[in-house]
């Protein structure tokens, strides 16, 4: 019985929502790992359980979280996107260059997001109609987009400030979305993450599109018999991923406010995929939830923060992050009986 519910909860929540059910859900393993980690850190450090630090963690995980939400859709649809780090860099740089070319904010951000759409579209078309494995298509795009960003900027850093040509009226708003605080306390990046996560949760759990994403990833063939256009659904998931990577890139630029094509977002794809898979999504498709992904992102963020607060050497940190990834996923696998 427990198992039926457990597996049931992995699919969109048809069942009524109860706390007990939630705790037996797929996410439970990760949730417990997170809880243990937080408890431990509250006792072991005095800096962890302060609202300032927690909000800080919230900000630091936001960009990763926004991208992990996109990756959740792609993984559930049975694909993978390795190009997200490059998209993150490219879209941020594109927006930045437009702003310092004197554009106003909305058009500049709009174009930045559109570059994300375009990259997602290419990824999607190559992986569906192009019949390439998405791993290969997006690995190729990883290089292509990074190369394009280098060519576009000639390898120079792009810094958004008035001296470089940004309109003075644009700067305060741009800074606000990246660096500002809502009600002077909640980091704007976190606000964006929360909005994205809530919207994605609604879409994935309750909308037809969400349903189709699960169906397509669970069995593409069966989805086709149900009249679902597999390719369109997959392409949409890639586009969503592209837009969210672009959004993260733009917010990242607004935060610093400087970016560099040769360095920004390098290797980010593995971080994003790790967080998503720790949260319960599977590379074989059909599985994953937004709640799980948020937990996955949190566990990695809290871990990083905690290790720093504990004064652990960065080398040991590197090692611990790997251990935690394995243990967090392991808790779930090892705590349930073998079911074949």
């Amino acid at each position, binding site marked *: 019985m427990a198992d039926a519910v457990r597996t049931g909860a992995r699919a969109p929540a048809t069942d009524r929502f109860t706390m007990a059910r939630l705790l037996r859900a797929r996410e439970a393993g990760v949730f417990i790992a997170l809880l243990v980690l937080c408890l431990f850190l509250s006792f072991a450090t005095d800096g962890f359980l302060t609202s300032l630090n927690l909000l800080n963690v919230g900000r630091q995980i936001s960009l990763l979280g926004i991208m992990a939400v996109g990756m959740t859709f792609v993984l559930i649809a049975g694909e993978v996107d390795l190009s997200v780090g490059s998209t993150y860099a490219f879209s941020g740089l594109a927006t930045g260059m437009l702003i310092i070319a004197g554009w106003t904010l909305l058009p500049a951000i709009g174009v930045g997001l559109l570059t994300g759409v375009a990259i997602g579209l290419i990824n999607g078309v190559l992986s569906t109609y192009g019949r390439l494995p998405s791993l290969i298509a997006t690995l190729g795009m990883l290089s292509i987009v990074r190369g394009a960003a280098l060519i576009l900027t000639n390898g*120079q850093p792009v810094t958004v400030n008035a001296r470089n040509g940004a309109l003075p009226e644009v700067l305060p708003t741009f800074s606000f979305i990246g660096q500002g605080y809502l009600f002077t306390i909640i980091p704007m990046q976190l606000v964006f993450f929360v909005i994205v996560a809530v919207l994605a949760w609604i879409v994935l759990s309750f909308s037809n599109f969400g349903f189709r994403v699960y169906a397509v990833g669970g069995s593409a063939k069966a989805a086709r018999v149900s009249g679902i256009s597999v390719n369109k659904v997959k392409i949409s998931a890639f586009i969503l991923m592209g837009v969210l990577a672009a959004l993260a890139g733009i917010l990242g630029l607004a935060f*610093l406010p400087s970016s560099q094509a040769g360095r920004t977002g390098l290797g980010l794809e593995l971080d994003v995929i790790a967080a998503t898979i720790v949260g319960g999504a599977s590379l074989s498709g059909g599985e994953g939830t937004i709640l799980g992904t948020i937990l996955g992102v949190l566990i990695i963020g809290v871990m990083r923060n905690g290790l*720093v607060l504990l004064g652990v050497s960065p080398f040991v940190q590197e090692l611990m992050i790997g251990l935690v990834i394995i243990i967090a996923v392991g808790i779930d696998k090892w705590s349930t009986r073998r079911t074949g």
Partner: protein
Amino acid sequence: ESKLADFTLAPRIKAKIDAGQPLDIYVSYHDVSNEFAPFMKAGVERAAKEDKVGAQFIGPVGADADGQISEIETLMGKMDGLAISSVSTDALAPVIDRVIAAGIPVVTFNTDNPESKRLAFAGQDLVQSGREAGKLMAKVLGGKGKVMITTIDAAAQWSLDREKGAREALKAESGIEVVSTLNTGTDPQKIYAAIENAMLANPSISGVLSLECCSTPAAGTWVERNKAADKVKVVGFDLLDQTVQLVQDGNVNATIDQAPEKQGFAAVDLIVQFLKGQPINNVDTGVGIYTKENIAEVAKK
């Protein structure tokens, strides 16, 4: 020097010089995608024009020893001279020696490779510039405090050299303790987050000494956002837009320039002089120190 005396020029190149054919100089920079590459490249191009030679600016995207070596190996047959800034001294030394052995003159620039048989070096003495940074740090701290050193690549040769110099200078001050060296990684967001976390973990830090271009503005930005200019002093390197602004606003207390354009120029120029048969010597491109007082010179440009 003896190195110069040992060197025999390849007949192929000699023939080219004698025939008055245009020479092809290759300048291999250890990361063509970093912020200095364009300045170095500008210097290289200026030298090519003034000295009337062909000059190619090459190197890997992202610091990568294998990539740098492979590229040099591939182009060895084409080059009449090589100027190189090494990702890693030990890794690149054998290749430099092989190029030298093939009768192709090699000079180093930006990051020296003294272990190798290179003919000369053009650039900043990195240990010296580190020392200068350390001294500046000591000065702005008034001789006492806890210092954190930050670098985007603790393992790179230039970073090791500067760190060595900085630590030497800081050790000389009894009131100053170096708490740690923070390796931030190269992603801008991660650099900032690393500094943010480290400052949180160790609130007693009163000085941040950044060894390069990119953690300098990150440290300055942190100071600016936390309104900590009184408590935390920042000394760093280079004159990125952001850094200039931060120095003007008092969030970075001092920065050291390494004149990248000059380095690129000198790299090519040294080889051309050598091929012309003129004697060559190391070129020190100098240590430019900028604080709030003199930063205006740069900001106007």
